[in-house]
């Protein structure tokens, strides 16, 4: 913790950058790995994204498809390391995504045990948590069936129930609520409201702006992997909605140009000198 960051900060992102390499062929990929010279094209899924989240903030991630929302949520969850920059988290984080690492062959119950075990809970703790999780997931008789027989809604419910029950300090929700039925979505929202009251920090990725309005306090708008705007929800959302309206009015050709320009911004041949 440098510069004596105050404890209320839940997440501090400093110039978080994620770049992937795109190769034209397998041989290029191999050469890049083995030879000291760099091959392939770099693609910036995120570039120099900096923001600070206070404890208790609920931050909606906005942006059109491919703007880097999912990449940012994976980095926040710790699934993917950033290639550059720094991310300081105050507490444990958990991500809820539609298919978040379930073993399809095992039953729902075994998946709960396995997940909790991997998260470092003891046998006794797991026994205690198990019934709560099963109850929350509403899977009832299906809990002892293999997960591969579940519908996508059931899987989402199981994933949600597990991640909510491990009581994380930072919760990242990636489109998960769009899968369950309305009753479960409401239950999940209630649970998240409960978390909000407890002062937990949440990140929310959703295409439903109405859900965000109901829920979020702040918004982070990403465009082509870069931070476009960050601030209180109303302000950011106003600009974002205006942008969306304009974007939707564009002709197909114009939309394509817009995307292509963004792609050019995001990628760079490694043989070219670095821009800044």
């Amino acid at each position, binding site marked *: 913790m440098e510069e004596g960051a105050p404890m209320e900060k839940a997440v501090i992102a400093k110039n978080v950058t994620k770049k*992937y390499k795109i190769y034209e062929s397998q041989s290029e990929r191999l050469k890049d790995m083995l030879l000291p010279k760099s091959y392939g094209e770099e693609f910036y899924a995120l570039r120099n994204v900096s923001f600070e989240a206070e404890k208790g903030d609920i931050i909606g991630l906005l942006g059109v498809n491919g703007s880097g929302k999912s990449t940012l949520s994976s980095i926040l969850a*710790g*699934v*993917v390391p950033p290639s550059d920059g720094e991310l300081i988290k105050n507490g444990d984080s958990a991500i809820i995504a539609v298919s978040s690492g379930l073993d399809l*062959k095992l039953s729902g119950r075994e998946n709960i045990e396995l997940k909790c*075990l991997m*998260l*470092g809970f003891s046998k006794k703790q797991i026994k205690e948590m198990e019934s709560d999780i099963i109850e929350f997931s509403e899977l009832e008789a299906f809990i002892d069936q293999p997960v591969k027989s579940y519908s996508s809604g059931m899987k989402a419910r199981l994933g949600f129930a597990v991640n909510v029950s491990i009581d994380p300090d930072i919760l990242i929700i990636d489109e998960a609520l769009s899968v369950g039925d309305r009753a479960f979505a409401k239950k999940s929202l209630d649970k998240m409201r409960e978390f909000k009251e407890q002062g937990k920090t949440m990140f929310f990725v959703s295409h439903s702006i109405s859900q965000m309005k109901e829920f979020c306090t702040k918004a982070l708008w990403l465009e082509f992997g870069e931070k476009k705007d960050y601030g209180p929800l109303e302000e950011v959302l106003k600009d974002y909605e205006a942008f969306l309206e304009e974007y939707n009015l564009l002709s197909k050709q114009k939309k394509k140009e817009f995307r292509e320009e963004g792609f050019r911004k995001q990628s760079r041949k490694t043989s070219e000198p670095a821009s800044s």
Partner: protein
Amino acid sequence: MKSAVLICKELYQSFYLIRRLSVYEIKSKNKNNYLGIAWEIINPLIFIAIYWFVFGYGIRGNTGVEGVPFLNWMMAGITIWFFVQPAVTQGSKSIFTKIKMVARMNFPTSAIPTYVIFSKLYPHLALMVIVGIYMQFTGYPVNMYYVQFPYFLFATIALVVSFVLISSTLTVLIRDIQMFIQSSIRVMLYLTPFLWTTDSLPPAIQSAMQLNPLYYLVEGYRAAYFGDGWYFIDQWEYTLYFWGTVAVFFIIGAALHVRFRRHFVDFL
């Protein structure tokens, strides 16, 4: 060298987790069959029967090896094969297949191949007991040389873990390594005296075959089952060679693993 110490520490610290996770791994592998986990035993027994028929009955005409009936001789050694073969093939692809699931969990990535290998240990122990019981009734009762079993078991695990540390890391980087391992591991069945003796070969070739560390383990298991002696002391030079090989594998594997693990997820 630093990485090797680090990995050792990690494996020691996550030993409880490795044990628990290996149970779920074996469950997950056998979920679809009515006989479930029993297949982990039935499968090797079927192969033992076939190998006896082809190599013992067909090729050798049912003659023994140095006075030991062929079936006893073969079973004593081939138990290792039924552990090493699945442990190496499944261990090698373990990081690649499981990293998504465990990426943000509270345990080190080096535990992934290790717990997959450990899940193969339960059927191995069961098979060892079954072979031991068969020995009882066929004239090779329990003897004091059984005491060396824990040593050879540990040696087997150490060899497999060290090797798989290399192969599982490389498999993430270059997917073709998995294909190579899958096909080349089969060769080891024939390059190790599981099914045939090397007695009739020229001495130079015999020694060359001993470069294969599995050779050491097979002879060790046999020495224990048949009460031939304290193999690891009688053959102390070979013991040194074996542990030297394991150490080299482990140091290379640990260095590779530590170097690349931060980026495993990026390679998928």
